């Protein structure tokens, strides 16, 4: 409980006053001072830059090569990470592959967050029948391991990157829905929500103004970690031949193709794997850092 004097002193601050620059910088500095958040943010920013400037960074065309002269080249010279079976530059393909992985992370989490937040808020806010339906659906979806659900969807829709978006997006929403539902249920009973309702605010206004902002930080943490999971899952599905189809430079399918030559040309499998590992690590570290920063209790 706050004492009246504390409440008053807080209310005295003019909400329109600009946030002091010092404090804002303090927050960013505090966030980045945790080593995990710092490294994670650095990796993610670097990846975004690589994806945007891929044509400038890649030393070769990622799709074309001279298979007669360049195939199976060991790392070195004009091919820093070697070439694949068709003589394509592995470094260039990894650089272009960044675009695929980041797109997968963004689109899949976009779908999951949209579905999860909508269903979670609706279920938590109105309860009753809708809640029963959503909660049961969530429980059922928890019964499917993600990758297996994605496998089933891919069987129906056929392999391909767009189908992976749908498959992983549909698999990812239940975690977010469960979280948002719980949050909605608890916020809904707060006095300020009751006051807003009594003052005649519409349901829509209450949800957008009071409930969603309370869900923002846990959803942000979950979506960041979810990107790591989605990128990992896409790599796995592409490794199985069910994701991005050739000649797309997906890291997972690069490993699958290089696998047969692991005895003589291990660079075909090792380097794309390093790319997946660093990317997933970056998002995991960033998610960890965000969680520590936004919710110090955990």
């Amino acid at each position, binding site marked *: 409980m706050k004492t009246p004097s504390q409440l008053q002193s807080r209310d005295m601050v003019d909400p329109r006053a600009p946030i002091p620059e010092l404090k804002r910088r303090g927050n960013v500095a505090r966030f980045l001072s945790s080593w995990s958040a710092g490294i994670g943010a650095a990796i993610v920013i670097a990846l975004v830059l690589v994806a945007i400037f891929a044509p400038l960074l890649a030393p070769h065309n990622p799709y074309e090569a001279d298979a007669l002269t360049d195939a199976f080249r060991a790392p070195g010279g004009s091919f820093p990470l070697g070439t694949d079976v068709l003589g394509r530059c592995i470094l260039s393909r990894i650089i272009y592959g960044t675009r695929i992985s980041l797109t997968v992370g963004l689109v899949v989490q976009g779908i999951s967050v949209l579905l999860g937040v909508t269903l979670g808020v609706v279920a938590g806010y109105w309860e009753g029948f809708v809640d029963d339906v959503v909660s049961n659906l969530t429980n059922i979806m928890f019964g499917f*391991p993600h990758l*297996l659900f994605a496998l089933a969807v891919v069987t129906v829709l056929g392999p391909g990157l767009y189908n992976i978006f749908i498959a992983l997006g549909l698999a990812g929403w239940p975690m977010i829905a469960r979280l948002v539902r719980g949050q909605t249920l608890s916020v809904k009973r707060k006095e300020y929500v009751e006051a807003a309702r009594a003052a005649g605010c519409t349901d829509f206004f209450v949800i957008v103004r009071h409930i969603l902002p309370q869900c923002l930080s846990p959803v942000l943490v979950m979506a960041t970690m979810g990107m790591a999971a989605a990128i990992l899952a896409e790599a*796995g599905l592409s490794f*199985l031949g069910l994701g991005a189809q050739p000649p797309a430079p997906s890291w997972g399918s690069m490993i699958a193709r290089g696998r047969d030559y*692991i005895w003589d040309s291990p660079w075909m499998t090792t380097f794309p794997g390093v790319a997946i590992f660093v990317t997933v690590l970056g998002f995991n570290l960033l998610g*960890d850092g965000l969680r520590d920063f936004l919710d110090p209790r955990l």
Partner: protein
Amino acid sequence: MWRYIVKRVLQSVPVFVGITLIAFILMDIVPGSAVTMMMDPRTAQMSPEVEARLIAHYGLDDPMPIRYGKFLLNAVRGDLGFSLRFNQPVTRIVMERLPPTALLATSAGIFATLLGLAFGIMASLHRGKLIDAISMIGAMVGASMPVFWFGLLLMLFFSVRLGWLPPSGWGSGDVRYLLMPATALGYGFAAVIARVTRSSMLEVLGMDYIVTARSKGLGGRVVIYKHALKNAMIPVVTVIGGQVGRLLSGAVLTETVFAWPGLGRLLVDSVLMRDLPTVQGCLVFIAAVFVAVNLVTDLMYAYLDPRVRFQ
């Protein structure tokens, strides 16, 4: 306790029915009938009369709810349908592939639990020290490493470079074949367990009753193992149960890397060959195992934490 068990068992029934329903609907909306799916139009043609006869023979022209009812009834009885590709009942194919997967998943699970608990406990007892940092960096790496890539790295090192271990196959359960797949699959799982164990232990070690136990003169070991660990295990058990799905997903990839003749490999092959009854059968079977494991986890949870069962 019995009331809780009955309630919890009944709760998992709708989940199981829902899973079979989703598996059924997904396979049902695939364009083309199950009969034409098996035919490659480039190599073989089927006359419409034959197709109609086959469809009638397999009961594929019944309305969907009836077909689903039959499917569910048969699944409960242990009949998962018939695979035209193998020309065998799906249940028999699944049972043949089960032992290798069960061996792989349990060894990986045991390996991960031992490793995860050991490092998690050590990290929590030496918070901020070198062993804590090593454990947590190791856990972060494990959580971010693609399981199939880690498997290939192990293969590259131990089979290609050193020649110590056989690179693939399951050798009918020979331990030398098991080492790499179980390590590859277990590492990511161990990482999760280590992290949860550490944070759970840290939380419990800060509780009043631990301080009390220490202040009344109990030795460090007794406090840690008798008072702290038992309570710290509660969230760990939940996480181990919840992560079994990850283990099953990982098994699909691990089996592909090491040519391990298990269920995961069967599932992937069936997806690629569009052998729908087998895909459906594998999905229902794996999901049923997953539901059962979650049920057991929850019951263990209730056993460990009396607060749950008296709610």
